[in-house]
């Protein structure tokens, strides 16, 4: 098994090191790093904007670029959190707690240096995990029938919507909305048009590009248009030589890095948890086991190393269920799956055998991309810091501009552009009402496949609904769904833990201070 995986990885390096693939990987991580630094931009909006561009790129290059944007933005997000106390992306909210006090003490450069090392360690572990775990998962998944696939998708939908940001009830409600949007178009089995209102453009359903750009492009920018003021950059004067941590800082950060990596990789195995929960859990754990927990929040290097390692380990691990089972854990992964589907590739366990170039090329590119990121971040820290000074008022018109041409260039179809604007306005209202739109995408991507497998399972079992419990693997997934619901009810009923509450309160305080 190990030798096969290593041979396949070698093949993957062959694919990823092809000059055009290295170029797409570089563009991905560069753009990702840049948008990670820019307040108000995030991987979701960026991948949505770049999605139409992937039409003209070969599948391998397209996936390498989009994946690069995702993990590249995690690197950039840390810079923003440490130097500006501005948690532009949720996973880095925890990094602010100790990162910014370190910056105020004049050790911001060292915190960034430790972040680069932690991120690389975490990502490397996540990639290794993917190399060995994915083929095993695929072997198991190939034995799945429609009932098992249906239950697994139900678990993915539930986990993705209940464990994400905000209220679980709202998360599930948004997933249901995504399922409904996924229904629009011709029925796969009978060809009956559903909710098309006689509009021919809707016969193929709502395009994922339109949905993603509407929800994460237009809606997010509409929400942020007044909120983000120009940032205070008085602590951002970091030079290359400042990035080097002292021996003592490195000695303290190293074990924290490994603990963070482990927690991140464990969190990645649970669909829906993602890097945000991983970073919160790892910070709480690090604080709990520390001999000086009272010093956390005052500039402890462990408080930077641990969450950053866990974030990156989790980000890489998120690709495991996505690429090996075709079940995305969150909205970013759903978009990456959407990109695969746009290219005519059906995600799922057969992906590794049918498109080994994509799977192994992607894994190999993770290492290449992470090395590029280290190389980019060290000498270009000055440029990233300068980027922080770009006012948001300049950024969002450019983003709107890219949304318009991106969606038009997909099919040269004005109807789709109109769709984006309508979805954007609905998304904006939902954001105001405190509904996060990410689960919509999850429901939209998984919905049609869920329906197809559900109907197939019912047909094979002659309408026996208990088929989902009679099949042992399916029963396990259903049990996990029930467990998830019970857990959510339990968490809501029991009084919140003091430590977790303290972290949430502190990050909220930091975020509001930064916004002010």
């Amino acid at each position: 098994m190990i030798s096969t995986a290593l041979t396949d990885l070698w093949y993957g390096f062959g694919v990823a090191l092809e000059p055009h693939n290295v170029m797409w990987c570089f563009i991905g991580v560069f753009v990702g790093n840049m948008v990670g630094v820019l307040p108000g931009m995030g991987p979701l909006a960026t991948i949505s904007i770049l999605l139409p561009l992937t039409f003209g790129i070969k599948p391998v290059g397209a996936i390498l670029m989009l994946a690069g944007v995702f993990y590249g933005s995690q690197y950039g997000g840390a810079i923003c959190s440490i130097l500006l106390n501005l948690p532009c992306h949720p996973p880095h909210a925890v990094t602010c707690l100790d990162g910014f006090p370190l910056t105020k003490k004049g050790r911001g450069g060292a915190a960034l240096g430790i972040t680069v090392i932690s991120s690389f360690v975490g990502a490397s572990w996540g990639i290794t995990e993917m190399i060995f775990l994915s083929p095993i998962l695929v072997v198991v998944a190939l034995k799945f029938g429609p009932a098992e696939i249906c239950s697994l998708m139900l678990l993915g939908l539930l986990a993705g919507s209940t464990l994400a940001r905000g209220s679980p009830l709202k998360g599930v409600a948004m997933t249901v909305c995504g399922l409904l949007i996924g229904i629009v178009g011709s029925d796969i089995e009978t060809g009956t048009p559903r909710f098309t209102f006689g509009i021919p453009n809707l016969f193929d359903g709502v395009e994922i590009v339109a949905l993603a750009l509407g929800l994460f492009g237009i809606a997010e920018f509409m929400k942020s248009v007044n909120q983000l003021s120009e940032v205070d950059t008085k602590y951002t004067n970091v030079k290359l030589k400042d990035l080097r941590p002292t021996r003592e800082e490195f000695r303290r950060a190293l074990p924290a890095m490994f603990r963070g990596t482990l927690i991140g990789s464990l969190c990645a195995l649970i669909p829906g948890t993602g890097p945000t929960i991983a970073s919160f859990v790892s910070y709480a754990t690090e604080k709990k086991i520390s001999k000086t927990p009272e010093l956390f929040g005052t500039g402890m290097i462990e408080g930077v190393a641990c969450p950053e390692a866990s974030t990156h380990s989790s980000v890489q691990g998120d690709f495991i269920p996505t690429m090996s089972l075709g079940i995305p854990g969150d909205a970013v992964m759903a978009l990456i799956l959407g990109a695969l589907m746009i290219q005519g590739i059906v995600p799922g366990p057969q992906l590794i055998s049918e498109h080994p170039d994509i799977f192994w090329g992607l894994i190999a590119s993770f290492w290449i991309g992470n090395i590029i990121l280290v190389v980019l971040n060290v000498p270009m820290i000055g440029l990233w810091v300068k980027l922080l000074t770009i006012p948001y008022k300049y950024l969002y018109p450019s983003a709107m501009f890219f949304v318009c041409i991106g969606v038009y260039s997909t099919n040269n179809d004005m109807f789709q552009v109109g769709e984006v604007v309508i979805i954007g306005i609905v998304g904006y209202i939902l954001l105001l009402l405190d509904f996060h739109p990410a689960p919509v995408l999850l429901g939209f991507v998984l919905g049609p496949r869920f329906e197809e497998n559900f109907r197939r399972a019912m047909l094979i079992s002659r309408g026996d609904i208990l088929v989902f419990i009679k099949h042992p693997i399916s029963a396990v997934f259903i049990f996990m769904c029930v467990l998830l619901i019970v857990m959510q009810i339990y968490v809501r009923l029991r009084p919140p833990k003091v430590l977790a509450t303290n972290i949430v309160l502190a990050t909220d305080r930091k975020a509001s201070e930064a916004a002010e």
Partner: protein
Amino acid sequence: MILRADHVAGAAFVIFGAAIIALSRDLPVGQLSMPGSGFLPMIVATLTIIFGLMLILRARESGPFAELGWGDGKHAMMVTGITAVAIALYEHLGFTITMLLMMVTLLIVIERRNPIRAGIYCIAIVLFTYVSFVYGLKTPLPEYSF
């Protein structure tokens, strides 16, 4: 009783679910042994109504509807309105003119940025994108068509 955000959201979900059920009357639901094309819409619409009702029941956890941050709404709608007008003109005026006008309006008229700096920025972005799409990605962009 204070009207809360989740009252409105929940009611919207209930109405939406009911509308889906009404619209899917023509779709065959089928039987459990052979679900038709109306089977899943019916289940999902029912779930939408249930979640809407749950939101209404738990609405006290949300803030008052009147206190929602609608202050940004006017600004956001102006931005979207300008984008929508640009989209409508896109096929007639072509890429360069429409996008330049859109960016200039957003930056100079709406955001009141320095006109010279904003103008240079807009021209640079439009040119860069034009070159990237037309020459780099070989994707044709619409030209002026009057």
